[in-house]
């Protein structure tokens, strides 16, 4: 498959973004994991089955549009692993709702967003995205 120049740039950008992410768990990554463990009651989550949409590059960290969709989910939690506080939001769905939500969040800087979905059978699934932030969104 021949890559267009646009595709090559996007691929290069993705590789550069991922290489910028810290490789070891930082204090904030641990806080994010702890926050998610509170949501799951200590249970682990398996990657997959959750679609998390977020821009690769957020020009303004004050308002970053995100969307999460998890077929079969009864609840979704979203955390950011580099913000002063990891919790972003939790959503609980009743029978009339589709298990999806779109909203806008603040990112203090380049970091990862993790969405964990609680499935009807009690299991947990997840997805994560790295977002590069040019202007941080914590009023600083």
């Amino acid at each position, binding site marked *: 498959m021949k890559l267009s120049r646009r595709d090559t740039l996007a691929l290069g950008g993705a590789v550069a973004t991922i290489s910028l992410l810290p490789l070891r768990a930082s204090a904030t990554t641990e806080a994010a994991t702890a926050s998610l463990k509170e949501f799951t009651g200590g249970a682990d989550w398996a990657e997959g089955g959750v679609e998390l949409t977020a821009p690769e590059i957020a020009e303004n960290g004050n308002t970053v549009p995100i969307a999460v969709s998890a077929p079969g989910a009864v609840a979704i939690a979203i955390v950011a692993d580099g913000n002063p*506080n990891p919790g972003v939001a939790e959503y609980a769905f009743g029978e*009339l709702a*589709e298990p999806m939500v779109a*909203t806008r969040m603040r990112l203090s800087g380049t970091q990862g967003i993790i969405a964990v979905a609680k499935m009807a059978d009690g299991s947990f699934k997840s997805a994560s995205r790295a977002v590069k932030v040019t202007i941080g969104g914590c009023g600083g």
Partner: protein
Amino acid sequence: MAKIKPRVKAPKSVAAGEVFTVKTLINHTMESGQRKGKDGNKIPRQILHTFDVTYNGAQVMTATQHGAISANPYVEFQMKVNESGTLTMKWLDDDGSTYETSKDIAVG
């Protein structure tokens, strides 16, 4: 803060069981508690911590929001209904205030 006015976009009528999108927006500073004022001290947190959606009294979706949700929170969700009724949306503020709005939806 300016007067809080929620805005909701939802269809006026749908077919029974047809999935539709609801878009909500409410103006609110969503003060995260992280910002520092001119005196150098952190401005206390004041956000809309809960967004609750019900249809004819039944829970549709409840969102618990934290400081990382942007100012003027936008929430878009999807749902379906089997009977005509009223979609009610409530926002709860840290300061104890409640903001509410509703939309009638006809099924036929």
